[in-house]
């Protein structure tokens, strides 16, 4: 059975998700911050984590942005293949939702129209839109506002297959250490391994959506995640880079098959303001 939908139906939903994501950090993250607080050894680090937990509670209560950098809006839309669309182009409806959410929500407009002439578009559009076709007749939407501080410190490389797991871990460690305090730690480290350049970066971004504490179901990736998490926290970077035992809350690796010549690795870093909100239509 085909389900008929008008593209304008997504506008309001996306607008609400933009606001919700920026105002309300999810419980999974807050719990991880609270756990880190009890384990942190640095007094500056403890103080910082305490402030971040209070900040999250306060932002939610007041319905204001927890972080001023409300980011590039990344909109992921899983579209059931039984849906038939009418109305304005879907991408326009998505932009309209982002425009409305950022305007009504008093969220910061951070997009420039051209990376070189740098004129602000004034409404935080365009967003980065990822439509995906899935089985079924539902639309599942996730809005992920991604701030510049952590996004800017991500990295991609293509290794030679000969370097294997050690090479991958090495690249991840170097990326995290170089990023230091600039990404507003504690961070979540999203890693993509395999695919092509574009696929690999996308895996790294999607890895950030996995709940903190959840491991990759494949044993050798789960083991790498745990090993890396410990090594990253041993770097001593600490909350906001002011030293401490909490540098990362988790490491999430996603993989995809790749070409016989290739071993691509992408690292996408997520700051403590890990924001995403989802809804189903």
């Amino acid at each position, binding site marked *: 059975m085909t389900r008929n939908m008008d593209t304008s139906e997504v506008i309001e939903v996306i607008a609400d998700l933009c606001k919700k994501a920026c105002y309300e950090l999810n419980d999974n993250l807050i719990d991880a911050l609270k756990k880190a607080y009890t384990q942190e050894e640095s*007094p*500056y680090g403890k103080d910082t984590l305490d402030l971040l937990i*209070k900040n999250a509670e306060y932002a939610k209560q*007041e319905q204001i942005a*927890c*972080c001023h950098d409300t980011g590039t809006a990344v909109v992921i839309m899983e579209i059931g293949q039984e849906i038939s669309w009418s109305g304005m182009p879907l991408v326009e409806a998505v932009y309209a939702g982002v425009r409305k959410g950022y305007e009504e929500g008093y969220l*910061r407009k951070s997009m420039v129209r051209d990376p070189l002439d740098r004129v602000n578009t004034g409404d935080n559009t365009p967003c980065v839109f990822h439509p995906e076709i899935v089985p079924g007749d539902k639309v599942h939407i996730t809005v992920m506002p991604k701030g510049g501080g952590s996004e800017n410190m991500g990295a991609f490389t293509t290794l030679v297959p000969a370097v294997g797991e050690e090479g991958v871990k090495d690249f991840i460690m170097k990326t995290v250490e170089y990023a230091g305090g600039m990404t507003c730690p504690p961070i979540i480290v999203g890693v993509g391994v395999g695919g092509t350049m574009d696929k690999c970066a996308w895996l790294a971004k999607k890895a950030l959506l996995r709940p903190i504490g959840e491991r990759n179901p494949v044993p050798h990736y789960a083991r790498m995640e745990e090993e890396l998490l410990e090594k990253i926290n041993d770097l*001593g970077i600490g909350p*906001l880079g002011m030293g401490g035992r909490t540098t990362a809350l988790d490491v999430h690796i996603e993989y995809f098959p790749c070409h016989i010549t290739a071993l691509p690795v992408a690292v996408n870093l997520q700051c403590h303001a890990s924001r995403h909100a989802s809804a189903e239509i």
Partner: protein
Amino acid sequence: MNKIIQLHTPLTKEDIKDLNIGDVLELTGTIYTARDAAHKRMQTALAEGKPQPVDFKDQLIFYAGPCPTKPGRTMGSIAPTTSMRMDSFVEMTFQLGMLGMIGKGDRSDFVPELCKKYGGVYLLSIGGASAMISNQVKTCDVVAYEDLGTESIKRLQVEKLRLIVGIDSKGRVFQSEQIQKYKR
């Protein structure tokens, strides 16, 4: 942690010369926001021999771009942005008389040298604690480059804005020293 030092603007080099890395401050008074785009315009004005939009003599520059203010509140969410992007402007702003910078994150190796040379400081605020920090801002006025939106230069009156000395006027760096302590 060191005890809290109360600082009130106006400040001079004399007031900040004895601050040490790791000192926790509560700052009350006037500061100015400026980030990437504003610094670039200041640089262009300087190159063209035009006047600066604000007299930065003995002022603190806050690297920040706030959210719009929700009705009923005094200030939109605000907290520092990554300071390193402004590193290439540090000498220029010191030469314009700036006393210090407020931001987040590490700086390039030449920034501590510049702090030493000009007797300035780099103060750390907490990135992303923007809802809470907005309560420390009592007034906000756009004073230049209004067309830049969030990136305009704004004059803020702050009350007990909590800061940590990241680089002192002796050129010492707080973060690198702390990280060594917790590295295993």
